[in-house]
């Protein structure tokens, strides 16, 4: 069992009204924007389950939009995220999907596009109490919570890549807390997610990127 902190009980510090529908929503899109190089020019949100039904009254839309601009759950700017997005010329939309029901009740798909034209879709679930889980990156099922600092590596599914990643980490004396590997298919695109206890050094990104089989490296700090 992971450590339940006094501040998991007395917290999170958050913009209301709901830890799952507001704070969790902000947290999911905060994590999502960390996975793509900014700045973003477009973010489209598809809402499922309870998110689709009650997103307006819970400020889920403002929270999602705030998170995608990098606001944390206790950032007062969440209230005005619509205006701030307009100022930044960030295009956005919200689409409730009430047809798909075989899904966690508080789920959102976030389709992002940055100024270079790169696109990425991230699916997140809000689990309650501000806790969240990222369950899909593009079409690949993944599983990570953002509670630990993480390196997300998109690479070719070929021998030696994972060994190369772990060597980059061990060379910098980084202790791996969790490590998971996901792939679209054999020999296809694969995702390695490594979670670590401490803050990760930023120079890990260019180091891992040097390997020609590695397409993209992202770092999500705790």
């Amino acid at each position, binding site marked *: 069992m992971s450590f339940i902190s*006094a501040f998991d009980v*007395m917290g999170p510090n958050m913009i209301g*009204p709901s830890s799952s529908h507001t704070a969790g929503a902000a947290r999911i899109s905060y994590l999502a924007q960390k996975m793509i190089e900014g700045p973003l020019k477009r973010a489209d949100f598809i809402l499922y389950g309870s998110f689709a039904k009650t997103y307006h009254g819970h400020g889920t839309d403002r929270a999602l939009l705030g998170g995608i601009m990098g606001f944390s759950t206790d950032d007062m700017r969440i209230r005005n995220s619509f205006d701030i997005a307009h100022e930044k010329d960030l295009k956005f939309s919200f689409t409730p999907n009430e047809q798909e029901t075989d899904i966690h009740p508080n789920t959102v798909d976030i389709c992002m596009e940055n100024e270079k034209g790169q696109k990425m879709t991230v699916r997140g679930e809000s689990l309650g109490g501000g806790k969240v889980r990222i369950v899909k990156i593009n079409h690949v099922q993944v599983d990570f919570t953002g509670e630990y600092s993480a390196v997300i590596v998109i690479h070719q599914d070929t021998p030696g890549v994972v060994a190369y990643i772990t060597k980059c980490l061990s060379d910098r004396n980084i202790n791996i807390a969790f490590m998971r590997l996901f792939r679209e298919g054999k020999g296809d695109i694969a995702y390695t997610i490594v979670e670590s206890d401490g803050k990760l050094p930023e120079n890990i990104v260019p180091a891992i990127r040097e390997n020609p089989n590695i397409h993209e490296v992202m770092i999500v700090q705790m």
Partner: protein
Amino acid sequence: MEFKNANELLALCEEKNLPVSEIMRIREIEFGETTSEIVNKKMTRVLEIMKDAAFSPIRQPIKSMGGLIGGEARKLSLHAQEKRGLCGELLQKAVTYAMATLETNASMGLIVASPTAGSAGIVPGLLLAMQEHYDFSDEEIIQVLFNASAIGYLAMRNATVAGAVGGCQAEVGVASAMAASAAVELMGGTPKECTFAASTVLMNMLGLVCDPVGGLVEYPCQNRNAAGVANALIAAEMALAGIPQLISLDEMIQTMFTVGKKIPAELRETAMGGCAVTQSACEACHICR
């Protein structure tokens, strides 16, 4: 310094001769791999947010996002000024601050989920009222917030604090148990008395369903936060008077969880039963859309 249940917590208090709050604070420093200064700084921030959230709607009421609440704290405060209050100063203030915090929450203000956003008014409501009434320092309040955290942690670890899983008894019930325990320590009660107070609250709020109108954290959530501080105060008073409880806190946490799982889904935060489906609620909900 780890404890898995209230029994182990009480044994630690006894062995180290420390209050509940200090055991929880030391645990946080040890397992969070951090320092005393950092945890105190974080809890100082918690108190700061709690004060803003509890006081600002009295001066400046705001309508909630869903339009179901707003202005209640100001009304209570004006009523108290007329000196015709029924509750007495302490409870009157506690209820005002609890309802105010839910107003802040429902209007997208900054709050501390304690343990959840929907129950965020109870711990600050009671403790801030006690601070004013008995002139406690911020340091004393910050210390007993660790006591409240210990009770919340036990519920999170061994049961649930999610309305969707265990009903309102898991949110408002647990928050009130946390507040009651912290109040007992603040008034000089023993660790055992803290657990008696928490156990009493869970007993008195057992079975409370979660049926928010329109699925929003507004109504009856705000009323139930007011009821929660009253329940906490009653339980703390009984514990401080030396009234023991037959059923232990560990048993009550387990019972709350067992009962919670038996509450039908309609009454667990789905807005498909209880208050949420009354005619008035459905009409109001139509208006707010």
